[in-house]
């Protein structure tokens, strides 16, 4: 199965096996497809044993940071003195990323099952699934699935709740997400203290991404060795990953690939390449927060954590944004900067001012009023925005700007020198 396309023969369908199959959404349908087998298995294991299995599998966080999941779980206090919580990050808002939406829409029980297993592993009795406010359909489907699972008393004493966001990209940052659940503005918190010590409502908490948790049930049923073997390049990147491909390709959509798959094959083969008569110009492989690749870098990039770093970018969330030769990189980078300026929580000066000024300067360049010194000014601003704030939103705004100027400097200079007609009004 697949959605919106049938799975390509080069895909490895573990998470996406039932995408497009509406029957898999119901509790009965999920059980019929072998669902909740892993949960039953988890109930026979001690919490630490579940964590060990996940550690052994090599599973790393699929939200963007790629932190080893089992290791994260092991940070939770072994001896339980306070309530423990699990927060599921379903605030998918990273431009270019739309994989968690598909998991929740087609296989809501895969997420619920993974959530329950993780809760057992970290000894949490309450779990919150934080779904972004705009995801009306996934929210309804998850609600229905949760009601059916609860009616079947699938999770025993564990309580899983859905929590609806209300429009804020920053709530995908784990500490902002916890504040939002607490009924506060979604401002990220200074770390330490880390969530495993002082998380939601001040209690030990683990935050995991939707795709990460959906990968846990198959790891339990098939064993960590099976998962570890799913690796085409670097043994530190294991399993399958959903890549959301969007922009200028013939067949955008979600593709599930074994880690280490060549980006070139994903774009030219699985996605059907560029539109007729167009050529690839640039690609952002991990959601808008990671550096942009030019054509040569894109064609040489392997899709795993290390492969992306080797090309000077990051695997991030696996949101692959493709630009062909018709794209105006200056305008698109301005749009990305505007996104971050809009989404900045405005706590840190470097971010609040930096994202706004970056946008203004880019708009001025696009309006034909750029100055010769503007590119250096943008790079200087970006430098002040990197590694200096509470969270990485500010760094994320700098990434496309710095890499964009480095790789497509000529396009910026054309606007500044008046060789290109302004596309914005000052």
């Amino acid at each position, binding site marked *: 199965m697949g959605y919106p396309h049938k799975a390509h023969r080069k895909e490895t369908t573990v998470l996406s096996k039932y995408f497009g199959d509406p029957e898999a959404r119901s509790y009965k349908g999920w059980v019929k497809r072998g669902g909740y087998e892993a949960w039953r298995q988890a109930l026979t294991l001690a919490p630490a044993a579940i964590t060990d299995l996940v550690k052994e599998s090599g599973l790393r966080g699929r939200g963007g940071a790629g932190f080893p999941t089992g290791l994260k779980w092991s940070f939770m206090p072994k001896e339980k003195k306070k309530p423990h919580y699990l927060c599921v990050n379903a605030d998918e808002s990273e431009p270019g990323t739309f994989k968690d939406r598909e998991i929740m829409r087609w296989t809501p029980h895969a997420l619920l099952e993974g959530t329950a297993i993780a809760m057992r592993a970290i000894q949490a009795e309450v779990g919150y699934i934080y779904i972004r406010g705009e995801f009306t359909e996934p929210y309804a489907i998850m609600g229905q699935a949760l009601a059916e699972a609860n009616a079947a008393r699938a999770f025993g004493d564990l309580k899983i709740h859905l929590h609806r966001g*209300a429009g804020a990209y920053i709530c995908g940052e784990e500490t902002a997400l916890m504040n939002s659940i607490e009924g506060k503005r979604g401002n990220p918190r200074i770390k330490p203290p880390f969530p495993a010590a002082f998380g939601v409502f001040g209690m030990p908490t683990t935050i995991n991404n939707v795709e990460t948790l959906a990968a846990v049930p198959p790891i339990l049923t098939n064993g960590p060795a099976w998962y570890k073997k799913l690796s085409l390049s670097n043994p530190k990147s294991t399993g399958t990953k959903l890549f959301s491909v969007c922009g200028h390709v013939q067949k955008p959509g979600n593709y599930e690939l074994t880690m280490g798959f060549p980006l070139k094959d994903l774009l030219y083969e699985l996605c059907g390449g560029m539109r007729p008569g167009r050529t690839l110009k640039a690609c952002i492989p991990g959601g808008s927060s990671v550096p942009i690749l030019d054509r040569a870098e894109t064609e040489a990039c392997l899709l795993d954590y290390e492969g992306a770093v080797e090309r000077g970018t990051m695997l991030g969330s696996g949101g692959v*944004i493709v630009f062909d030769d018709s794209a105006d990189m200056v*305008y698109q980078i301005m749009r990305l900067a505007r*996104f971050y300026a809009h989404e900045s929580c405005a706590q840190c000066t470097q971010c609040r001012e930096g994202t706004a000024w970056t946008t203004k300067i880019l708009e001025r360049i696009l309006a034909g009023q750029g100055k010769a010194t503007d590119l250096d000014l943008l790079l200087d601003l970006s430098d002040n925005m990197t590694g200096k704030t509470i969270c990485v939103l500010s760094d994320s705004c700098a990434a496309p700007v710095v890499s964009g100027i480095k790789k497509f400097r000529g396009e910026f200079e054309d606007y500044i020198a008046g060789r290109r007609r302004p596309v914005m009004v000052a």
Partner: protein
Amino acid sequence: MSVSAHPTHDAGTEPYQPVFTGKVLEELQALLGRYPTKQGALLPALWLVQQQRGWISDRNMTEVAAVLGLTPAYVKGVVTFYTMYHQHPVGQNFVQVCTTSPCNICGAEDVVRALLQATGAKELGATSPDGKWTVIEVECLGACGFATPVLINDDFLESVSPEKVPELVQRYR
């Protein structure tokens, strides 16, 4: 930046009709059981208000504050943080169009123009003279492979193109 055509004041001369009575109050009470603090129910409580009233007025915020043991100023601080809470009335059909880069390169701005024209809303954030439509641009709706996604009220529509807009608007009229 979108500018609202609506006044935000709602001093109101009529007596205030509380939101949290009867069934809505029961819903809120069920929500309170999900969180260890009353404040935890703030976001869902605000959603309840918006579902009931279409927007969240200053007086609604004062009521929410009283119910959850917070101050009105605190509640307002939270309301203003989240873009989906309306602080003024909006058109009967509230339309959100994604125009962030991935949708942008697939023609999202043309979809916005088509919607502003077909609905008669004319200006981003303004409401059409018949009170039926408000159109806004939003940042990433998280459905980039289905450019251009459009959210009309609670209906999430995929792959909207300018050509599809007139028929779409007709459906909601």
